[in-house]
């Protein structure tokens, strides 16, 4: 299959990341169908007439990284508004047609996360037709490309913009190093590149038209526009950093006097966690690591259960036969990707994998001056099938915890739709007992989002040339 694969037909933000420092997602409404088609055609014309050019994948990554990258995703409303033929529209899957709001309960978007509480532009989901993403290192570059993209405003109307940026090297607001583990593809990565103890993902994990992780099973490819395209769950996820840090403090205080605490952190081991840390401060970091499955440095508990080693990007591990006193069954990275570990849904070990392209938004959090300004993550969760990957992972694994009877009935400690009255998270110990933490509040609140389709370059040309 790889010989037939045309790299240059795929948008450049799908199979690997750009590693740019800044992103701006423009949330757009199609103002005029004909002008929007002309605009789309111009984005893939190689001369552009002043319109930004879609960044595409290549057999090799560029030798010099471009100053800016530009990609687009269309919602179902956007495809319909462009006049996409019904023979193609009818082949899109139900969850994409109905949109992210219709899946709110499945995604845990309830209470404060419910779509009714989303601010503009996400309060009018039917008006969101297109999300254009600009990647660059400087704000001035984002502004310039935005200006080019909007042009005279006849084709597209700007409903809102979301800016993300990385202030520290790949760290997110809760203080963890992120963006370590991604699916590897045979068409992009050599067998030993970024080895992660997992099989390389078939292209059908993220692109339509290729074999998937399910043997013999294929997804429907919408005629003319589907092949080489990908689906994206775009999410604006606010993080309550003050609440998270307060929970760590409170939990460390509780653990200090817990009869089994020495098993969790042997006396004298504080120095392994960080230089000059008090027992309380070291316990805070242990709890943070157990909740995520990685230390805040990025080091995975599966490889380094007792201290945040310096090999921060270590990713070559599995949970097969692993003792949960290292990485709890309910830890965030284990819930969202159980790798080869034992799970209830035996056919699902590698089938729900997602490509994650996220960037933090909002001001950095200064623990010496706690504030409650909005900050969080602009997440893009890519896959060839939203229902089988993003929604399946969120509904059955992140929340509910159906993959392991020892976590069933609990939600992800970091990302879950938790309610302090009922939430719990277990810290398994070497002796086989567990310490159960309770009262976890909801740390991540959904503030907006949309399901988009990232069409191939040839699909963009097709849409740009529509005449009906």
């Amino acid at each position, binding site marked *: 299959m790889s010989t037939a694969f045309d790299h240059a037909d795929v948008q450049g933000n799908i199979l690997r990341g750009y590693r740019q420092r800044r992103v701006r997602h423009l949330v757009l409404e199609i103002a005029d169908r004909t002008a929007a088609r002309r605009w789309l055609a111009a984005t893939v014309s190689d001369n552009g007439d002043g319109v930004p050019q879609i960044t595409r994948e290549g057999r090799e990554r560029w030798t010099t990284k471009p100053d800016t990258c530009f990609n687009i995703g269309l919602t179902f409303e956007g495809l319909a508004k462009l006049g996409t033929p019904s023979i193609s529209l009818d082949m899109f899957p139900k969850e994409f047609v109905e949109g992210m709001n219709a899946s709110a309960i499945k995604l845990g978007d309830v209470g404060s996360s419910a779509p009714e509480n989303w601010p503009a532009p996400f309060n009018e989901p039917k008006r969101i037709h297109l999300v254009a993403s600009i990647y660059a290192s400087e704000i001035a570059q984002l502004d310039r490309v935005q200006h080019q993209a909007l042009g005279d405003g006849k084709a597209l109307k700007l409903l809102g913009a979301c800016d993300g940026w990385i202030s520290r090297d790949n760290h997110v607001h809760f203080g963890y190093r992120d963006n370590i583990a991604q699916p590897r593809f045979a068409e992009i990565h050599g067998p030993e590149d970024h080895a992660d103890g997992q099989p390389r993902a078939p292209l059908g994990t993220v692109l339509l038209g290729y074999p998937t992780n399910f043997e013999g099973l294929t997804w429907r490819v919408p005629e003319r526009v589907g092949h080489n395209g990908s689906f994206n769950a775009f999410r604006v996820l606010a993080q309550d950093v003050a609440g998270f840090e307060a929970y760590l403090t409170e939990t460390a205080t509780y653990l200090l006097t817990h009869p089994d605490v020495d098993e969790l952190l042997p006396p004298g081991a504080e120095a392994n966690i960080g230089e000059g840390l008090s027992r309380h401060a070291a316990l805070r970091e242990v709890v943070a690591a157990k909740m995520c499955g990685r230390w805040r440095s990025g080091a995975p508990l599966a490889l380094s259960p007792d201290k945040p080693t310096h090999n921060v990007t270590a990713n070559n591990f599995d949970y097969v036969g692993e003792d949960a006193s290292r990485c709890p069954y309910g830890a965030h990275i284990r819930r969202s990707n159980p790798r080869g570990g034992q799970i209830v849904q035996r056919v699902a070990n590698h089938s729900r994998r997602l490509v994650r392209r996220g960037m933090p938004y909002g001001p950095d959090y200064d623990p010496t001056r706690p504030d409650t300004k909005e900050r969080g993550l602009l997440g893009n969760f890519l896959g060839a099938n939203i229902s*089988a990957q993003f929604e399946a992972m969120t*509904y059955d694994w992140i929340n509910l915890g159906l993959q392991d009877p020892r976590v069933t009935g609990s939600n992800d400690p970091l990302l879950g739709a938790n309610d302090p009255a009922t939430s719990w998270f277990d810290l398994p110990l070497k002796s086989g007992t567990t310490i159960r933490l309770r009262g976890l509040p909801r740390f991540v609140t959904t503030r907006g989002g949309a399901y988009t389709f990232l069409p191939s370059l040839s699909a963009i040309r097709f849409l740009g040339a529509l005449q009906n």
Partner: protein
Amino acid sequence: MPSNEGWLDRFVDGLPSNPLFMFLARRVLVPYWAWRTPVTPQPGGPRVSIQPGDNVQCMMNLIMPLKDKSPIGRANAAMAISQYKDEIYAGLDNVGTVHFARFVIVDDNICMFSVYDGDFTNYIRDFITTIGSVFNAVVELVEEGEAVIPCEQNVEAFIEWVHARDMYQVPDLATDILKDQKGDKAGSSPDDLRKLPREVVLQLRANPNVSLGGGYRAYPGYSAAQVRQKFGVGW
């Protein structure tokens, strides 16, 4: 307490036991209502919930009308199930989230009744992934089955096909039927409780086979794997 019912009240109250009126209601009034306010058939399955306990032990009551409505057709269905029983059960085992599943023939329908945990689409998708080719032999005996076989190559369509044939689960709270009918038009108009009996009649006209409420449970909801783990039989 003296009754202040007038003759009209007594007349209206007596209508449901008046054979002439009931005949007219069945033959004229209900078809007229249905023509005036079309009600779409509701898809089956439980309402999605994120409350622990409500999202395990969900019911699927799949009713598949046989193409051949004769003893021969029913025999073919019985043979297909018995021929592939081992493969089907192995597939259910691999899904991991299924408590019980039974195949039943009622009139000229082959039915699959099962109790599963979590999301319906994941259940059906994982099931088809493991035994799709075998289940095709059952689906091809069913009306409109040919549109979705081979099911492993028509996964999205097959899931919707099953969803449409799974029994609509009438809400425990009858008034919630009004919410179901509004669907994505939620909030479009206030509920009018006076219309409830009519709406129930129309919904049951659109969905002749339904499951009534969430059903009885002798104990709180546990996942199949939790039960297996507690009994020490592996999961």
